[in-house]
Structures are given as structure tokens and as C-alpha cells.
């Protein structure tokens, strides 16, 4: 540890102003602060500080997303072997490793493109590297179908980092959730790669693992099947454990629940937002059930599709969600209700979570404005009463 510190101290002058590697200062600074807690001490204000910082917060979210990622990898393999009819003879390792090989390039592309842009941007602006993309970078691969081509993914990541985040001022200033922006970009620009019944299962073997599936196979998501009026061929247990086709990380309610526990335990996600998304979704689904407008029951609506994943990882993004406590209830309920309404009432889209969250992102400042305005009105009222 000491040797590493001394090494860093020795090469540090190269990156400082006037040094020959000054163009990479942000990268050096980013790496140094990841290895060592910065030794900078306070100059004004409080002399002691809480040990929490944005690196720790983002790392916790990444850890929370890992169960969904790992299960997603296994499920990619599982679906491939299942469709090929070879599930019985495949070992756990074979199934998982195929999924790993299919998913890891997406994670790498997402991080390399996204972090590359972030590093370059930070250097250009002479700022410290912001950690927000650590989370976005793992969430994007989790919300796309496994067959999404890497080059399309790369464009989507670049779009989301530049257009949806950095031009607003970076992490903390963006209006829309960057991961969902990437997905929305894909969804509207390359619909054939994002929806339908042939994108959800990996079709080609990789390095001898997995199976080549014949052309013309179909495996729609349960919501896709419902959308076209077909019966869902899965049990509720399948839906909860996650052995169904879908975006890589969204299928397993159990894996997402582990993430939810981590996020709520550490207090990083707002329980108000998360709880009210579920409450809003359940109430709306129950109403549709009572009106007989949807063929599946309310709990199937909750466990299917991206509802849980969106509620746990997307809606709770503190930057794009409502920031007042009361506002978070409204914001969450709006997402839950909107997602189910889109699913049931819009014939075009079988899934509504992404659009619901982006819609609520747009309204979050308005919700906060109304909540804060009540406080302002109270103060104004006190003033006028006093002046009478």
C-alpha cells in the first residue's frame, strides 16, 4: 500500500499543470481517488465530514444491480438451451458461461464507450470525473434484449451520455434517467432490434458454448404474448424466479428484490418512491381487473416485464426523481399507474415502464415545485397576517 502511494506521488507531477501528461489529469485523479480516499482537508465550514461520498453511493448501487446481472447471464443461457431442447444435458456451468459470454460484451461496450466519453468530457471541462456513469453503465445492459447488436448499443450509450446527461451539466443536473434515455433511443430508432418475438433469446453459440438456433424461432416475452392476445405459457413461479424471456436483468423478481434490499438498507433508494411505484401499479392493475380490461391479474402485472426493475433501479434515481418527501409519493404513484395504463390501454406497446418513468422524470420538477410552493405560501400567509 505504501509503495503504491509512493508510486502515485512520484508520477503525480506529470499530470499536474505543466506536466507532460496533463491531458490525462482527470483520469489520473479518478484512479487515484478510487485507490485512496482523497487526503484533501477542509478549508472553510465544517472540519469533520461524513465518510459517505458519491463514489460509495454509486458503488452500492452497482453492487445492488449485480444479482440481477448474474441471474440475467444465467437466464440468457437457460433460454438458449431451453429453446434448443438441450437443457436437460447441459451443466450449470455451461448454461451460465454461455450467458456470461453473451452478456459481458454488452457490459464492456457500455462502460468503455460511456466512461470514455465521461473521462474526455471531464478532462475538457477540467473537472473531476463524476461517478454517475458507473451505475448507468451497468443498468443499460440490463434493460436491453440479449440480441441487441453491440454497435447499436454503443450509439445509444454515446447518445445518452452526451445528449441526456453531459449537456445538462453532468451527474446531478440531468432531467431524464440516462439509462432509460439509452433504451428509449434504441426503442424508437431500432424497433426491430428491441421488440418482437425474436430478440429475447441468444441465437448463436459463442466459443463452443450454447446452441445455434434455427431461423424463424419465436420466443416472445409474456407481455408481448398478452399484447397479441395469446395465452402466457409461464407459471407465476417462473415469472418470480425469472426463467422467462425478457431484457437481460429484468426477469427475476428475486434477484431484483435482493438489490432492493441493499438499496433500501443503505438508504440510497427512497422507500417512498419505491413503495409508491408498487402501490400505484397495484391499485391501477386492480382497477383494470375489476373493469375486466386486462387478461392477467394484478400480481402478474407487477412481476412481469420491467415493472420491478424500473421501480427498484430506475424510479429511485435521486437525480431525476422528485426530491421532496411528499413529491416522491406522487412521483412514484404516477409511474406505477402510468406503466399499467400504457400496458393495458395502448395497443402499440406491450410494456409501459420505460415511458412511464421518462414521463414522470419530466414531471418531477413540477411536482416538487407544487410541494415547495405550499411552504412558500405558508410563509407568505404568515407575512400578510403579520402586516394586518
Amino acid at each position, binding site marked *: *500500500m*505504501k509503495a503504491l*502511494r509512493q508510486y502515485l506521488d512520484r508520477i503525480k507531477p506529470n499530470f499536474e499543470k505543466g506536466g507532460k501528461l496533463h491531458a490525462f489529469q482527470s483520469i489520473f485523479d479518478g484512479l487515484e*481517488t*478510487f*485507490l*485512496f*480516499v*482523497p*487526503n*484533501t*482537508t*477542509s*478549508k*472553510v*465550514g*465544517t*472540519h*469533520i*465530514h*461524513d*465518510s*459517505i*461520498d*458519491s*463514489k*460509495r*453511493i*454509486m*458503488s*452500492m448501487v452497482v453492487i445492488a444491480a449485480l444479482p440481477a446481472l448474474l441471474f440475467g447471464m444465467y437466464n440468457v443461457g437457460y433460454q438458449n438451451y431451453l429453446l434448443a431442447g438441450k437443457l436437460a444435458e447441459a451443466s450449470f456451468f455451461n448454461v451460465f458461461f454461455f450467458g456470461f459470454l453473451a452478456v459481458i460484451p454488452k457490459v464492456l461496450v457500455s462502460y468503455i464507450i460511456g466512461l470514455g466519453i465521461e473521462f474526455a468530457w471531464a478532462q475538457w471541462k477540467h473537472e*473531476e470525473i*463524476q461517478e*454517475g456513469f458507473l451505475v448507468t453503465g451497468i443498468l443499460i445492459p440490463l434493460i436491453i434484449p440479449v440480441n441487441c447488436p453491440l454497435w447499436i448499443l454503443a450509439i445509444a450509450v454515446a447518445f445518452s451520455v452526451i445528449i441526456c446527461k453531459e449537456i445538462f451539466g*453532468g*451527474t*446531478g*443536473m440531468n432531467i431524464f434517467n440516462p439509462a432509460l434515455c439509452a433504451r428509449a433511443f434504441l426503442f424508437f430508432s431500432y424497433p426491430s432490434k428491441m421488440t418482437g418475438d425474436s430478440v429475447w433469446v441468444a441465437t448463436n453459440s459463442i466459443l463452443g458454448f450454447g446452441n445455434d438456433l434455427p431461423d424463424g424461432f419465436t420466443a416472445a416475452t409474456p407481455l408481448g404474448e398478452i399484447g397479441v392476445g395469446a395465452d402466457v405459457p409461464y407459471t407465476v413461479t417462473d415469472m418470480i424466479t425469472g426463467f422467462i424471456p425478457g431484457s437481460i436483468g429484468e426477469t427475476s423478481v428475486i434477484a431484483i428484490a435482493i438489490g432492493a434490499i441493499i438499496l433500501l*438498507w*443503505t*438508504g*440510497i433508494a*427512497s422507500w417512498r418512491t419505491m413503495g409508491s411505484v408498487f402501490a400505484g401499479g397495484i391499485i391501477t392493475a386492480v382497477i383494470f381487473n375489476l373493469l375486466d380490461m386486462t387478461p392477467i391479474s394484478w400480481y402478474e402485472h407487477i412481476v412481469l416485464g420491467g415493472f420491478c426493475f424500473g421501480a427498484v433501479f430506475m424510479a429511485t434515481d*435521486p*437525480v431525476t*426523481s*422528485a*426530491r*421532496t*418527501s411528499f413529491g416522491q409519493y406522487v412521483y412514484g404513484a404516477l409511474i406505477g399507474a402510468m406503466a399499467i395504463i400504457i400496458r393495458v390501454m395502448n395497443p402499440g406497446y406491450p410494456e409501459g415502464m420505460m415511458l412511464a418513468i421518462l414521463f414522470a422524470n419530466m414531471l418531477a420538477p413540477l411536482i*416538487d415545485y407544487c410541494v*415547495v410552493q405550499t*411552504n*412558500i405560501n*405558508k*410563509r*407568505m400567509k*404568515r*407575512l400578510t397576517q*403579520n402586516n394586518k
Partner: protein
Amino acid sequence: MANVIKLRKGYNIHLKGKAAETKRSVGQSAEYMLCPDTFVGVIPKLLVHEGDHVDAGEALFVDKRYPEVRFASPVSGTVCNVVRGDRRKILGIKIKADKEQQFYDFGKKDAASLLGEEVKSALLEAGLFGYIYQLPYAVSASPQQKPKAIFVSALRDMPLAGNFEFELQGNETDFQTGLTALSKIAKTYLGVGKSQNSDALLKAQDVEITIFDGPCPAGNVGVQVNHLLPVNKGETVWTVDPTFVLFFGRLFNTGKVNLKRTIAIGGSAISTPEYVEALIGTPFADILKDAFKRQEGIRLINGNPLTGIKSSLEDSVGVKTSEITAIPEGDHADEMLGWILPRTNQLSTSHSYFSWLLGKKEYDLDARIKGGERHIIMSGEYDKVLPMDIYGEFLIKAIIAGDIDKMEQLGIYEVSPEDFAVAEFVDSSKLELQRIVREGLDMLRKENA
């Protein structure tokens, strides 16, 4: 039965090196220094020159804007040096103390029989009026405005803060006289902590007593004002530190200005944390002789670690010095992989650490910021530790944006920088909230002047 207000928001920070309740007296120092900067908002205009002789209580300088506000010398002696900084700013007035102290006699007065105006002019004459602060702006009070009420908080609940009850022992009469005097000017409220039980506080006369039951910053007078009588635009309330109430009481009881105060010396870098009795203006070097555990890598703070000012042994006891604390500087801590390791020796409000399971464990924290400055990312962090009816995060954003209308609407007149001290501690974005609030207040003060 006093009114009890229960506060849920806030956070108590327990640090190592809390002062033991034993008192040591610091003998007379050779030189004393009064720093005008410790009176926030005052622009000093000197009344004395080098070589002049003053008695204890005679004015050294006045406020340029309100020349009737005089500032008393803590000792009798000869003005030996006026320390100046950039653009000849007066940093301090040094007085070489007489061997035999002479007190200027302002005459004993019976506070109970005085009128409000008489109390005010007595304080102005004795150079003590400037010790009264005001809301809005959290600056030394203007004598031209009539306050709606006066607030005194006897609770000091910042980490390592001096216990006022300990200072009060033996000074009960002066405290009561001071309160009585203040109550003549305007209705006076005394805020007391739940754990405080001395009779001088709970049975104080001429004031309305409120008990505040809650974590830090429940002791902040600004927080108490917000719950009792929030400040509206155009109104003024005065706030008085309980130690200054003792000064006022002494003035009326003895006719003299006696600026002796009790100061807690604490922090993990102090070898024997205890209380000392010293005059305002006493050099730190005399108080802290052999006080440190080690000589290198120490952050000396004039005040407590949340609201105090970084200082050195050349500084002297200021107006707000109810404690002097010393913690490790920590600039060579070289802690690895802070973003993932458990770090059980670190204090955090976040549950991604374990300190919340360890109850009242005392921590040895250093002066590191422990992270880089970011935009505000997490929501509700400030509001969890700001027990006021104010949206702290939105107010901070309005100040950063320089939006004066919004600041007013969001209640900037009700806050002082110290109310955001705990929020600054917990902030994961590592913003300098107290500096931001001070800048906002200064902006508005200038705008409304």
C-alpha cells in the same frame, strides 16, 4: 410547566476528547487581542491609536455604520499593535495588559427597574451591545431596529461543545440579571435542552422557557426561533449567546465589563480535555501550553468542529469561542479503497457503513473532506438534519443560483449558516453549505441595505 418542543430531525455526533468538568484558570497574559472579525457584519473604525491607554470596558473601536455601537476592551493596558491585513483591514487590536487591572466603572444598576431604552443605552455605552446578534442575516445587531423578541439558547449541542450549565455554576445571579435586563427591551425566550436541569435555567424569571428535546442542531438559536416565532421579511429578532447574558448581568450587578468566560478544551488531539476560564482576547498560546498530544498534524479549531474556524496558536479567544478543539489534520491518512471497505472507525449517517449500529461510540475524526465535491445528487440529505420548516436543498440551490426572490420565499431570513452545519457534515456532495448560506445572507443584506 415549561413548553416542550420535540424535534426529530438532526444528528448527534460523538467525538473523542470531550472536556471533563474540571476548571483551570489561565493566569494573566502579557498581551490580549480583540479581533473585530469575530463580530460578524461589523466594519470596525478604530477609536484608539498605538500607545493609548485603555481601561477594561473602554471602547477600542466602533461599527462604522452604527458609531454608537462600541466594542469594549477586555483588559486595561496599552494598545501596543494594530494588526492589519490586506487593504489595511484591521485583523486585531493588541493590548499590553497592565499588571494591576483597572476597570472602567459604568455604575451599578438595578436591571429590574430599568426601561428597555435604558438597558440598551447601558449596553451601548459599555461596549457590549455588539455581542447581540440578529436574525435576519445572522450578524451583529443593528441598534436602530426594534426587535420583535429576544432569544437565548442555553443549549450547546454541537460536537465537543462546552456545557453552558457548567459555566453557569457560580454565575446564576448574573445570568438572571442579564435575562431580566434583556426582557426589558423585548419579550425574551430562553431555550433549554432536555438534559439540562439546573434551577437557574428551569426557574429563570422574566423569560418564557421552552425545552427543546431533540438531536443537534436543536441547540441552535435559529432552530429555536423557527419553532417559536419565525422571522418574516421586515422583522428582526435578537439572539444572544448565554455567555453574553452573563456579561450583561455582570455589567448591571458590578458596573464593570468583565469578559471572563469558560471555554471547553477538547478533541482527540488534546491530552487532558478540560475547561479553562479565560478572558476574551487571551492568546491561544497561553491557554494551550503543553495541551497537545503531539506537535505535528493537528487541526486547531477556534470553536467546535462543525462551526468553528481553522486557527493557530497565534489566534486569541474570540467572541464565539465557547470551546477550542483540536483534531488530527489527516492529510497523510492514505486510506485505501474507501468506496468499498467497511471502515468501521469512520462515522457516517449512511447505512452503507456500520456506525449507525454502534450507538454512542465516540469517534476520532480528522479534517479530511473524504470525497470530491459534486452537484447535489442525493435528495433529502439536508432536510433530515435540518429541524426547521424550510426546504434546505431548494434554499441552497436558490442561493447558488443567486435568485434573490426565491431565497426570500424559501425563508433565508430565518436561517443562519450554523443551522446548516450538520447538513454540511452529512452532505455526500461535499458542498460548503455554511459558506454558501453566508454568501446568500450577505447578498441579501447588501440588496436590502
